[in-house]
């Protein structure tokens, strides 16, 4: 599972914070790095009281990890209709992956085009946001992502 783990340290593109970039961790710690996949990002929406359209959450990147996993075509075909394509391809671009088309492809592509399936798989399951934040599109509320775990806890007045 953790055969080919690369670190893509990139400059923070946030307009909100001027935090220094996180230092590169030792090898041992690297192995434990966990992630939020774009699959999860595509499912998450902001849950604050009064927000009518909490999707998609804006991503702020501090650190992205790549983590190769086995490809499963059946899963990709099953999940494809549920993916919000616009949000998904935008998010993949923010994480620095530019290979996905902006317009949603025809479902028929999934049957034959192995090349596309590979790209889809890579963006959906192998790109991980490790450090950064998510922002509610309506209120701008920040949900910090640490060690790949988004903190979606709301304050009492937001419930």
């Amino acid at each position, binding site marked *: *599972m*953790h055969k080919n783990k690369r670190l893509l340290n990139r400059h923070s593109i946030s307009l909100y914070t001027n935090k220094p970039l996180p230092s590169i961790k030792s090898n041992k710690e690297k*192995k*434990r790095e*966990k*992630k*939020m*996949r774009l*699959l*999860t990002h*595509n*499912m*998450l*929406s*902001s*849950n604050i009281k009064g927000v009518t359209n*909490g*999707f998609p959450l804006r991503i702020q990147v501090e650190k992205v990890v790549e983590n190769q996993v086995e490809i*499963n075509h*059946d*899963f990709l*075909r*099953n*999940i494809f209709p*549920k993916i*919000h394509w616009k949000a998904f391809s935008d998010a993949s671009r923010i994480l620095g992956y530019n290979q996905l088309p902006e317009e949603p492809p025809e479902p028929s592509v999934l049957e034959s085009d192995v090349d596309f399936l590979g790209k889809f798989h890579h963006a959906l*399951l192998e790109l991980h946001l490790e450090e950064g934040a998510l922002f509610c599109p309506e209120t701008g509320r920040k949900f910090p992502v640490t*060690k*790949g*775990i*988004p*903190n*979606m*806890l*709301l304050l*009492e007045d937001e*419930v």
Partner: protein
Amino acid sequence: MSSRPELQAPPEIFYDDSEARKYTSSSRIAEIQVKLSERALELLALPDDGVPRLLLDIGCGSGLSGETITENGHQWIGLDISPSMLNVALQNEVEGDLLLGDMGQGLGLRPGVIDGAISISAVQWLCNADKSSHEPRLRLKAFFGSLYRCLARGARAVLQVYPENLAQRELILSYAMRAGFAGGVVVDYPHSTKKRKEYLVLTCGPPSLSTAVPSGKGEDGESCSDEESSGDEENQTVRNSDRHRPRKKQKINKKGKGREWVLRKKEQMRKKGNVVPPDTKYTARKRKARF
């Protein structure tokens, strides 16, 4: 002090580092968790076509239940309120994604995207008001409402719960029904106090044949107990409403209780150490009519 963790502290405080460590060090806890999650997956009854589904694990904790999902080849997203438990999950390098969140605030997920949900020993926490702002009824409503929304039509949710009492079970169930779920409670080992486990099996969508509670076998108590003795020991299930054991009937006929009955009773008394007259040919013999 009660042994119920729900009564000791709120979940994010109760499951601190030392409590979370138990979930990696105690093989007993791990074994129970794995068994519960295997059973929950079984009740989830996903179509057996080898296609991985996207499941939700509510109250995933250290990811023990998630690992069972991974073993069955599905993708999952886990939600928990305790950072310590999630840290343990990180150390265990679980496959699914983790979210730090409170199910009582509703699940922040898009509608109709999840293929199934399981939850092991978590939902009863909603019945407690741990903060002044907590109102159990509102939290249950928010939880079941958002769960119903994020599940795909026809998808199932299997929630293993430890309700404190009958009222709590009714409360949980009534809010599930109000959210639109169909389904009911499945009880494993109903006659055992320790092994007894309850599962809420909920189906998204209007009631139909496919939404029937899986253990709907045995509509009356008698056939139910038959099933139990014939079926394999591991999977005894009885519907909650049919949990009435048939009353033992005393064998009384015209002749009275009979010699056998008297001999048995005398034997019982002897075992207790009472002084009992010996069994003779006169024992339990009828008196003559002229007497």
